[in-house]
């Protein structure tokens, strides 16, 4: 099986020049991929490589400089043609730490003041979930392009409001589902579409960790602010913060959203005052009767994280980057034997030769999807796409649809667990 891929370029090496060269190569790949119809969000990457002139520079402000915001700073500092012009955080220690990393950036405690800053092209929102909608809507109103971290929003109504506002604004919108730009996931999609695993008959995904999922809090009064993921007023916990990634991939690979879901969740281990479930189990049903089975917990990490895309001919484990054939191919002599019997021939089965001292055990471990596994999970490429789209002044096609589908999915799952009933896809939802 040919597992080489045009997407197998690595993003290792951190230099600016390296990244520029990588993006140049990526532009060629993006322009030639046969999968582009299914990857409309790759189109900004086909743009001509960015130069050094001030006209090419995109000025971005980051709202929320916590863990994820800091990771984005690292990537944006190495993304050609991007200037981090402003940072915003209402938690002073985070803001100061961020400003120390980004020379010349202006600091804000209130994002609305940052939106008023002249010359700012776009914002990157890495704030707690419950603030996403408000910040997106205000940014669109202020005429800014928006990169919003996942999950899209805290409620389905808010997801709808963001989609509506974006439709009217004509601005670039991007969601932080980086697997849409991961070379490994693109290769997985290519193999699925080439029929390597046959029809997708089930997707199983999980994200398991073993830890309390808490940040250290210097003062009890900051508990909700710094550990917002644990409290229901700010987050839906495992569903929005982890499951949204794999639900985005599931919807993408299945080419649609689920029609309904049902699940159970509970707090069965970390009984420390948190309000969000520490274990969740949800099954999603799609119109063609394919199911996506999802579970997540934070009291065991043996299985880690994975999304298994299954079909009658094979299984893809996209996080591990491997493809497992359902049935190892028989040796040529056996194939000849089977053919002969089926067609009524009485032929000699040829054996011997070099294959008769086989050592094929490694095949039980599957085939690598790409041989040169990139060190980037798609985040760096996705930020380059965002910057390019702003430069081109064109919205990223297909992006809001992916954001809404994943965002609504996880909220359906949360509702199902909380209400203990099956929840249908909101038919009135307009992506």
């Amino acid at each position, binding site marked *: 099986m040919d597992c080489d891929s045009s997407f197998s370029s690595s993003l290792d090496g951190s230099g600016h020049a390296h990244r520029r060269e990588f993006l140049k190569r990526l532009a060629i790949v993006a322009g030639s991929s046969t999968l582009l119809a299914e990857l409309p969000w790759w189109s900004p990457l086909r743009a001509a490589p960015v130069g050094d002139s001030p006209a090419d520079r995109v000025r971005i402000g980051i709202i929320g400089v916590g863990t994820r915001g800091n990771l984005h700073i690292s990537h944006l500092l190495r993304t050609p043609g991007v200037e981090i012009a402003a940072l915003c955080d209402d938690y002073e220690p985070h803001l100061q730490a961020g400003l120390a990393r980004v020379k010349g950036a202006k600091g804000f405690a209130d994002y609305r003041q940052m939106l008023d800053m002249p010359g700012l092209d776009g914002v990157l929102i890495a704030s707690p979930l419950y603030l996403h909608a408000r910040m997106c809507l205000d940014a669109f109103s202020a005429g800014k392009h928006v990169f919003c971290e996942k999950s899209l929003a805290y409620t389905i109504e808010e997801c709808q409001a963001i989609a509506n506002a974006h439709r009217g604004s004509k601005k670039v919108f991007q969601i932080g589902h980086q697997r849409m730009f991961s070379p490994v996931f693109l290769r997985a999609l290519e193999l699925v579409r080439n029929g390597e695993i046959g029809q997708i008959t089930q997707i199983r995904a999980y994200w398991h960790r073993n830890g309390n999922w808490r940040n250290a809090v210097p003062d009890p009064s900051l508990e909700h602010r710094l550990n917002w993921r644990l409290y229901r007023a700010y987050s839906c916990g495992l569903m929005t913060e982890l499951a949204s990634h794999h639900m985005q991939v599931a919807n993408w690979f299945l080419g649609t959203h689920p029609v309904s879901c049902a699940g159970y969740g509970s707090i069965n281990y970390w009984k420390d005052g948190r309000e969000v479930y520490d274990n969740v189990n949800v099954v999603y049903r799609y119109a063609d009767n394919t199911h996506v089975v999802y579970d997540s917990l934070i009291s065991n990490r043996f299985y880690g994280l994975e999304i298994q895309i299954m079909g009658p001919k094979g299984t893809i484990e996209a996080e591990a980057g491997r493809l497992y054939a359902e049935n*190892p191919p028989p040796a040529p*002599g056996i194939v000849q034997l089977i053919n002969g019997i*089926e067609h009524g021939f009485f032929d000699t089965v*040829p054996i*011997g030769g*070099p294959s*008769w*001292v*086989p050592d094929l*055990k490694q095949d039980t471990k599957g085939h690598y999807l790409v041989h040169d596994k990139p060190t980037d999970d798609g985040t760096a490429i996705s930020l380059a796409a965002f910057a390019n789209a702003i430069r081109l002044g064109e919205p990223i096609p297909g992006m809001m649809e992916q954001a809404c589908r994943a965002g609504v999915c996880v909220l359906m799952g949360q509702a199902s667990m909380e209400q203990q009933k099956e929840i249908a896809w909101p038919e009135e939802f307009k992506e």
Partner: protein
Amino acid sequence: MLVVETLLPGPASGTKVFHHSCFVMNTRFSMVLVEMDTERAEALAIAAERDLRAHERMMSRFDAEGPVSDLNRCAAEKAIQPPEGLWEVLSLCRDYSKRTRGAFDITLWPLNCLWREHLGRGEEPTGKAIKEARRQTGFKRLHFDEAAHTVRFQREGMSIDLGGFGKGYALERLAGSLRAHGVERAFLSFGESSITVLGSHPHGPAWPVGITNMFHPSETVHTFHLHNASLSSSGTAPFNHLGGPRAFGEIIDPHNGRPIEGYRTMSVASPSGIEAEVLSTALLVTPERDRAALVSGFSTISAVEIVYHSNAGMFVPRIAWKYGL
């Protein structure tokens, strides 16, 4: 699991074929069943794979927690009682060692390591090193306590390797199970070097199996017609299964502690999978003049030795010895 529907264009005979392959015992196992309901065939394949994996766990020297590793690690220090299945296997190996006058030997691992290490560096081990390694080999240095069912190594550094026995043993067991389940026709193959058939080919009186020229795989050198029989091949090749070069033929002659030379294969057909497996190696390391005497103590077998001679830069196969044909 796969029910092969159509692999070739043209009209099918209507004979239903079920095929299952899996990786087990360090090789690819294939099972072909014919004229059988798919559900039944699948159930048999699942059971077969489960049994083969159990055999692998029992006999593999590469499972650090397995009973063979226990033995290799501790049996020089004290008598070890292996699980009953492994005791049975070791006892069988001892019997076959006697019946082949030491030509079949599961204790050659120290010599294997010595040669692999030296040839990997492009040199031969010294005579002294070979002599020392030979002191760590030989069935006479394996002490069996029949009453306690324990095994003890008489020297430090001894190590057993069931690689030349396990596949034949597993095939013989599997064939017995399939027969017990009423299976009358089957083709079972371990990496094509160990084959067992039940009954005959659905369109002929036997299962014809051709030993191909290893340098020209499209050319068959000899064809065995198997009916309720097993076929095992051992030998040396200049390349590994991927076509890459091999430094070491891997078959050690226990009589002198050296790897056998040249490119040769020995294929043995026997009603017993174990005997085919044992004899394919034992005959290869036994001088031609002694082979007839060696096989006279076994059930009806047929055997072919193919030797590859270099001729104007080409390797040409020749049937150098045959028996029972």
